[in-house]
């Protein structure tokens, strides 16, 4: 299941992903959030990049939380549950992925702009681990919910 989702994701052409999915779905909202929180940052969204005078954060294939979403979705789809529970779980997984990823990008932008020494540790180590942990909590909650619903 995971491999299938991964294959489909990598079948998406780069321009489509960068200019549409990443730009409208991720970079533009993230720039909006940063500007709302700190208007003086004057961040602009330029294709796949969050840009300002103090930092430039590129969002490329893989920075969109796809791997995390696929992992969580594959786990739910492969679990023994009713189809509607699986679909609800996948929807929740996508929502959680999107929210966490936007938070991650906004956080990483501020870190890059103001504490760049922390960037690597957060980007490579703490944030991926935290996201997997958050996904695990969602999965556990979903498992309990789906099982109770199945037992009713």
């Amino acid at each position, binding site marked *: 299941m*995971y491999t299938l989702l*991964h294959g489909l994701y*990598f079948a998406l052409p780069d321009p489509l992903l960068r200019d549409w999915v990443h730009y409208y779905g991720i970079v533009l909202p993230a720039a909006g959030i940063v500007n709302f929180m700190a208007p003086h940052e004057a961040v602009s969204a330029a294709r796949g990049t969050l840009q300002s005078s103090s930092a430039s954060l590129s969002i490329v294939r893989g920075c969109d939380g796809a791997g995390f979403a696929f992992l969580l979705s594959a786990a739910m789809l*492969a*679990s023994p549950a009713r189809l509607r529970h699986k679909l609800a779980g996948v929807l929740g997984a996508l929502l959680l992925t999107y929210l966490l990823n936007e938070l991650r990008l906004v956080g990483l932008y501020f870190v890059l702009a103001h504490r760049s020494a922390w960037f690597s540790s957060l980007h*490579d180590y703490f944030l991926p681990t935290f996201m997997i942990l958050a996904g695990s909590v969602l999965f556990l909650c979903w498992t*309990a919910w789906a099982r*109770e619903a199945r037992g009713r």
Partner: protein
Amino acid sequence: MALLLGSVNSGFEVFVHRGDLFRLCLRMLAICAVVSVVTVLAQRELMACLLPCFNVIIRLLQSDFVASPRAVEMHNEWMIQMTPFLLRAVSLSDQLALRRFVELPPFFVGVNHALVPLVLLITAVASWPFASSREAAVRALLTLLGLPLVVALTTPLLLVARVQMWIVELALQHGAGSREPALVSAAIFMESGGRWLLPLTVAIACVAVSKRLCVGGAVHPLKGRRPSTFARPVKVVFAPVCVEAVEMPPGVR
């Protein structure tokens, strides 16, 4: 962690009751925090243990070059540096080739990046409650056995793939067409989520097998504990393609 414990679930079914959720989540969070902090503090020592393994695995993965990866500090960050030394000529096109016995530029991977799969594996294995110290010991032993697989398919694979990608790019710059090498495809899969999937898969295998080996044996799984969902005996059935765990009714061993 729990992802796995249900995800590889072409059979391994997890039963989590609402009352146990909070405890399990707290336990996961605490274990993850401790493992993360310890790993960050001991990253240099961990690398000292892992680098010889990386070296062996890199040699097993390919035969074009040798390289002794080492840990270096760059801009207050520990990195794994690998400088490949070509043992044979590598052809870029019909007319062009990299000569043998030349040193390629160094390739780097962050130590933090290399340690994430290990943190996930340890957290996943330790988070799922065990019924007895025997089960814990068996699980720890199985984790040690699974560790080389996680180590092999993450950082060494990435380092080798980076070298191969560099060679492919060089070939393209010289107008030669080039196909994506299999190790590069594998590394892309691992880097885009496979490096999380793999330790979690190994973890569920360790948990399932340790339950299979210990629960139902001489050791009582509920010794001194409130009989929670997790501590109840679990029957693990091995099928050709899946592992299936079925909760047994209370009292059945």
